């Protein structure tokens, strides 16, 4: 039997992000539940989040972000031969999102699958894309993180409703002669699977806030360091650190313990809320748009969430 071999490396050619138009402020939430702007800002660091209405599905969000990334890459739909959508908030489990996203973008007959690694999903999907290109299973991959968390959140529960938002972010990944996506460090903690869950199809998202906070602020900076080590990069060489936008206090705690002195730290949660698998590509696409991070610089991505799952890798910023 023959085996295939792909490109020597893979790199992200372009990012794209999309958020629904409807802004939900803390003041708005304070009118419908027992909370306040001050409470939300101090606990999770969020000022506002976006929420999609009934007319806009999780797939719609993915199509918008994917289309932007594709346009920015300079490629056409016919160049893409694999589509991966990281999501954990689909309206229904069948059919998958990736096939529909591909069809809507005019990508004909690509490999298409979804990844559910919750808030770590984008980093898992990006690793799968890079490996597919290097292994010869794909040449150009559209990777999307898209979430409509609003439909899995109890809007009367102040412990979760204030945290989450809807959005999508995408990356076009292609072949490269030099490494543009570093080795992934990934893993899971199944014994803590109950810490973040939707109990059944009629239930809303529940989270053990303190347990998740403890795990995120103690177990993840070593993962971030290992991702740097595996890529042969020092934390002080990073131009950007883009962790999952779970909670501003978690972001700041991991950044402090990582010690990436020169890196711009993604704080997109302030204006986007926690958008699960979308948060990393959404944050980075906005940082690139605003010119905050240099093309060719190194960014460390670090996803973590329900499962519990985690994954991190260093990438070259397109």
């Amino acid at each position, binding site marked *: 039997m023959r085996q295939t071999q792909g490109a020597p490396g893979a790199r992200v050619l372009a990012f794209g992000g999309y958020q629904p138009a409807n802004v939900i402020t803390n003041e708005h939430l304070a009118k419908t539940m027992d909370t306040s702007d001050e409470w939300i800002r101090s*606990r999770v660091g969020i000022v506002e989040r976006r929420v999609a209405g009934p007319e806009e599905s999780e797939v719609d969000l993915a199509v918008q972000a994917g289309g932007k990334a594709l346009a920015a890459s300079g490629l056409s739909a016919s160049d893409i031969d694999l589509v991966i959508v990281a999501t954990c908030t689909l309206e229904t489990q069948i059919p998958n999102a990736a096939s529909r996203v591909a069809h809507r973008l005019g990508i004909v007959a690509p490999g298409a699958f979804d990844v559910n690694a919750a808030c770590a999903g984008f980093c898992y999907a990006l690793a799968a894309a890079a490996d597919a290109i290097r292994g010869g299973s794909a040449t150009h991959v559209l990777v999307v993180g898209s979430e409509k968390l609003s439909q899995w959140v109890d809007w009367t529960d102040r412990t979760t409703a204030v945290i989450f938002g809807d959005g999508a972010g995408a990356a076009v990944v292609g072949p490269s002669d030099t490494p543009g996506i570093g080795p992934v460090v990934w893993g899971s903690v199944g014994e803590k699977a109950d810490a973040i869950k939707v109990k059944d199809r009629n239930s809303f998202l529940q989270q053990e806030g*303190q347990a998740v906070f*403890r795990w995120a602020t103690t177990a993840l900076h070593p993962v971030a360091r290992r991702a740097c080590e595996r890529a042969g990069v020092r934390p002080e060489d990073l131009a950007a650190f883009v962790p999952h936008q779970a909670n501003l206090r978690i972001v700041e705690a991991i950044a402090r313990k990582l010690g990436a002195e020169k890196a711009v730290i993604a704080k997109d949660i302030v204006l986007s809320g926690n958008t699960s698998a979308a948060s990393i590509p959404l944050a980075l696409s906005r940082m690139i748009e605003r010119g905050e991070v240099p093309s060719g610089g190194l960014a460390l991505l670090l996803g973590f969430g329900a499962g519990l799952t985690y994954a991190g890798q260093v990438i070259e910023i397109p």
Partner: protein
Amino acid sequence: MALTEQEILAGLGKIINEITGIPAAEVTPEKSFVDDLDIDSLSMVEIAVAAQDEFGVEIPDDQLKNLKTVKDVINFIQS
């Protein structure tokens, strides 16, 4: 040798100051974390983690919620 109450109090004052900015002198045994020191549940987790590093005593989340005052934490570390 077990640490004295004064030694633990001094260590806790330092930890709480680093995490919350509250002056260590304000951290006295009778103070309630929530009502007197205005420390929220996430800062309590950070304090518990730092206390574990400092004193070698793990304070799990299900125990942490029962520790209302500085004295409660001192007793837990000593027990």
